[in-house]
């Protein structure tokens, strides 16, 4: 008799049924996609679910977008509960720290300092790929240490990864995470873009494969399993 994996609801309608009820807990999951595929919306919806479930969330933003602007643009989504800002969901400007710090141990220390203060069950680092540009040769070792520690702090973490449209996911990150979700788009025959989500990897989980249609609206990010 082995220990069965605990699962955490993703907060994304349609997704949990594709992966045995939710993300493994604890785990690290890469959500990769090019610009406009919904990575940050996905991540916030994940944290919002946690807030509804009485869990604590921690959102680290790197050098992608200042928190004030990110929140301004997402505040129109129906899943956002502004009462949770600064409480059940706490925001940390990792980007400011990264402007002057390149030592991987100090970056890890900064992250862990916030984790031990807040004790989150859900964490987002958005995007993690910025750290690759800053840490260069130390990046892979840093990612290894980061993902190991995040799981030992007993949280499920979404790492968002920026890629070009021609690149499915950031390879360096893919080796050390427990799950990989790829967000992509294609030009539709009738014009416009169709967006998709694919579960490439989810350890310990019998998950659906292939691309599934995604809808991003005022309701947030929704997956339509089986629709391609």
């Amino acid at each position, binding site marked *: *008799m*082995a*220990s069965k994996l*605990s699962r955490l609801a993703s907060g994304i309608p349609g997704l949990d049924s594709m992966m045995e009820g939710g993300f493994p807990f604890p785990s690290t999951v890469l959500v990769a996609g090019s610009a406009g595929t919904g990575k940050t919306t996905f991540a916030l919806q994940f944290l919002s679910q946690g807030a509804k479930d*009485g869990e604590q969330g921690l959102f680290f933003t790197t050098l992608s977008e200042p928190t004030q602007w990110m929140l301004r643009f997402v505040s129109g989504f129906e899943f956002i509960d502004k009462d949770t800002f600064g409480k059940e969901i706490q925001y940390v400007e990792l980007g400011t720290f990264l402007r002057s710090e390149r030592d991987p141990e100090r970056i890890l220390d900064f992250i862990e*300092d916030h984790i031990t203060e807040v004790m989150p069950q859900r964490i987002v680092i958005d995007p993690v790929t910025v750290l690759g540009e800053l840490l260069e040769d130390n990046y892979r070792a840093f990612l290894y*240490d980061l993902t190991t520690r995040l799981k*030992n*702090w007993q949280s499920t973490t979404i790492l968002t990864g920026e890629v070009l449209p021609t690149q499915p996911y950031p390879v360096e990150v893919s080796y050390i995470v427990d799950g990989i979700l790829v967000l992509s788009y294609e030009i539709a025959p009738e014009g416009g873009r169709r967006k998709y989500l694919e579960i490439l990897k989810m350890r310990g989980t019998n998950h659906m494969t292939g691309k599934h249609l995604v809808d991003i609206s005022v309701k947030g990010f929704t997956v339509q399993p089986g629709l391609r």
Partner: protein
Amino acid sequence: MAILEKELDANTGKKVLLTANYVHLNKVCVCLLKYLLGVKHAKGIYIAVDRPYTYTSRLLTKQGVPQENLFYLDAISNLSSEPIQKAKNAELINGPFCSTVLEEALAKLTNNGGRMNDVDFVFLDNLTVMLNYMDDKCLFGFLGQFVIKLSKEGRTLTFTMVDKAAHPKVYAMAKQNCDVEIEIQGEWLRN
């Protein structure tokens, strides 16, 4: 937190099974140790089988929980690939595997220069994760030994278990070996 403290207070000196949702485990650990070390000023042993003891130690430091009276027995650092951190108040054993944990861990506790003499509590964290390393027969045997060898008048033995619904046999075994179960509710842990 007040409700949990009240429950713990009422069950001092007993064999206590704490059951919780996995997502609450960090907070359960902090609340329990804050109560035992910070409020009751008790002396105790923490047996780490889920993650290196350094995580709990760092968490307790950040949360203002004193650790002068806490000794760590760590069964996982040697497997974790993280740098081993030795400390005066921590001892590492080779792994939470059946043959090791039954003999080495209990021997270290009970034969180690009288360390157990004035210990007020022993906290095992957590039963469920031990299933990753041993079969249920071995786990049953271990828990039985844990209770028999470490029980003493006035000493609290605490073991946590997560996701009990997913592991009914282990839960049943744990219930047999405890005096009381405290089922942690999420709202108890809110500040």
